[in-house]
């Protein structure tokens, strides 16, 4: 089989689009982290993200975040149409920098927690959650 010039172009374009799409979603996560950290380095560890390994219903996935010594923690869902989930800002009356809530997940994806420590440094962790029924749109 020989490919005409036009067919080759179309194939190339299709491949380029296929490569760009996941990159686009990834860029949104990186942008959100950069906006939160102001471009500072983010190291791994020091923040704990607790979530079920398998969530049957993506509409309410119980999660909890904890980072001793943090002033705020941002949570991102890398596979959601809008990766932002929320930001917890902790006041001085909290004995442990820890909070729980319930989130929506569109499908199986990575959850990311980025914590800002009281000394101005940033740490992050991520965790994969398998979702049986998606929780966005429908």
């Amino acid at each position: 089989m020989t490919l005409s010039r036009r067919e080759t172009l179309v194939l190339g374009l299709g491949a380029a689009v296929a490569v760009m799409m996941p990159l686009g979603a990834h860029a949104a996560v990186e942008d959100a982290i950069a906006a939160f950290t102001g471009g500072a380095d983010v190291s791994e560890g020091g923040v704990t993200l607790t979530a079920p390994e398998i969530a049957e219903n993506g509409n309410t996935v119980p999660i909890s975040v904890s980072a001793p010594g943090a002033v705020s923690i941002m949570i991102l869902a890398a596979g959601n149409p809008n990766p932002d989930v929320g930001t917890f800002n902790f006041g001085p009356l909290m004995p442990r920098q820890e909070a729980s809530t319930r989130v929506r997940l569109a499908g199986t994806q990575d959850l990311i927690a980025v914590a800002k420590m009281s000394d101005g440094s940033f740490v992050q962790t991520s965790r994969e959650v398998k979702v049986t029924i998606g929780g966005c749109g429908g």
Partner: protein
Amino acid sequence: MADGKPRVRVPKTASAGEQITIKTLISHKMESGQRKDGDGNPIPRQIINRFTAEFNGEVVIDVTMEPAISTNPYFEFDAVVPESGEFVFTWYDDNGDVYTTSSPITVS
């Protein structure tokens, strides 16, 4: 369920410096803006975008919320109470509504 009906669980008494656990829930549909109605038109976003808890005017926790927070937003967190006083919980709706509730606590 009617929107904006808060429910909170705060212990009525505590000893000074004790860690207490606070649980809050508010009924709200948290319309994400991603869904479409029967005719295929997008349903406009209407969520609670911020939640705060204060004790005697001092911030305990301040949460910025996005559409990925589930229907009927639930939060659980700890606090220490240095003296008797009142917790004030506030939720801010996209449409400008503000829902508040308060619960007193006695430190013995």
